């Protein structure tokens, strides 16, 4: 049996396992078109750097999401535009209504609007941590590994980001009505 010293085709398996969920995550932040580019570039970057991967870690997800997060940073303006548009659009549609169902919808809409505005107002580092935890379901340790920062930093950034988003929700009359 003659084996190739390097078998890059194995990397296709990694792509098959992670590309779709990664795309879903990235599309939340920067929309579908840019997400496609970011996902492709994430895997190419990962492939180029695969020799540096610390195989002590059994899960490649944090590593891939870390690369993707750094690539998303290049689309920061698109991401901000997206959040601000969402905040503006949903706030404008939040007209008063009497029907219970509509009120519930409006409450949800208002919450999203407030959250989108809050996301746009977070620092990049805080937002990265918050979204890796909330949207990608990474643990604190995985988030730390993804971003190359200490777990303590993850905790402090997450606390700060959560405090701000909570405040944004609380400041909105429609969302605070939900808690009464």
């Amino acid at each position: 049996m003659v084996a190739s010293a390097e078998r890059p085709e194995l990397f296709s398996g990694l792509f098959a396992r992670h590309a779709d969920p990664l795309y879903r995550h990235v599309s939340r932040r920067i929309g579908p078109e840019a997400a496609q580019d970011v996902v492709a570039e994430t895997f190419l970057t990962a492939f180029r750097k695969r020799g540096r991967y610390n195989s002590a870690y059994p899960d490649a997800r944090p590593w891939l999401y870390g690369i993707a997060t750094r690539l998303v940073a290049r689309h920061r303006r698109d991401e901000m535009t997206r959040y601000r548009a969402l905040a503006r659009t949903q706030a404008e549609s939040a007209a008063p209504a009497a029907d219970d169902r509509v009120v519930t919808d409006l409450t949800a809409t208002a919450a999203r609007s407030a959250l989108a505005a809050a996301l746009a107002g977070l620092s990049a580092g805080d937002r990265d941590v918050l979204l890796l935890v909330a949207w990608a379901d990474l643990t604190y340790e995985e988030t730390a590994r993804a971003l190359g920062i200490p777990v303590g930093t993850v905790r402090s950034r997450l606390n700060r980001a959560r405090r701000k988003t909570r405040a944004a929700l609380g400041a909105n009359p429609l969302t605070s009505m939900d808690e009464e």
Partner: protein
Amino acid sequence: MDEMTELRDLGRALEHAPPPLTAPEFTGGVRRLPSLRGWPALAVAAAATAAIITVPAVVWSGGPESSPAASAPAQADSSAELRKQATDPATWAVGLSESGKYPAITSAQSGVDSEAPQQWDVMIGVYTSPAADSDGCEIPTDKEPGEKPSCAEITTKAVSPDAEETSVTKLLDTLTFKAQGAEADGSTGPAALGTVQETLTLRLGDAGRRGEFLDALAKYPGAERDEKATDPIGRPAASITIPGTGQSHWEIFYDAATAKYLGGRYTDGTGKEPFATVILDMAYGTKGS
């Protein structure tokens, strides 16, 4: 509803279903890790030995001093050595540890300076990263899950039945990287063999999941499955052979009916005697006990 729940809702609302994504063309060589070449010969031998026999490393219930991690390098005629160690099946039987929480195992491996099968009731799998230095990193001896190693280059995977939750996807990821990145220092075979061993003995207590993992392993590029093989001490077994760097290859032996791991063998392709380990008997821990 708290802000994290609201945020997750927002995420779902913003998400787009993935279009058919095409994998980029993955071609080209591995960007090499710092090479071991040029290190003193002793350091190279120590690192290679550590990569082989500390994955998984085993820790006696009696304490770290009994750990075979510091055992001698592989000796000639490993099969004969293993057969000698495994001559008395009556000594194989194991029971669970006192708590019943951890897997218990009796094993023998070539290169261990002992003729007696070894019994462990607490095991800690240690992955050695490709760039790990054998100096300066103590193998952790903690028995509790979740303990962090003192050295950044070594990560423990505490062995408890909870580890069964590890997904096959994650394990395949690990293998993928071991098969690629680890090639940089020539330790692909031992490292990957260690991962498979740890997976089959320590992580997957459920026969169905072991079977699933073995099926996935058999589909690994270049892998060959043989339902009528013989393990290193002559027991009938199924095997999966995985190609490594150059002429090297590693073989996984398991019971076809129960998917129980029986042992592994790594042949480096240079004519040296293969390194082998056999599991004589083992009992899986009780989840959540």
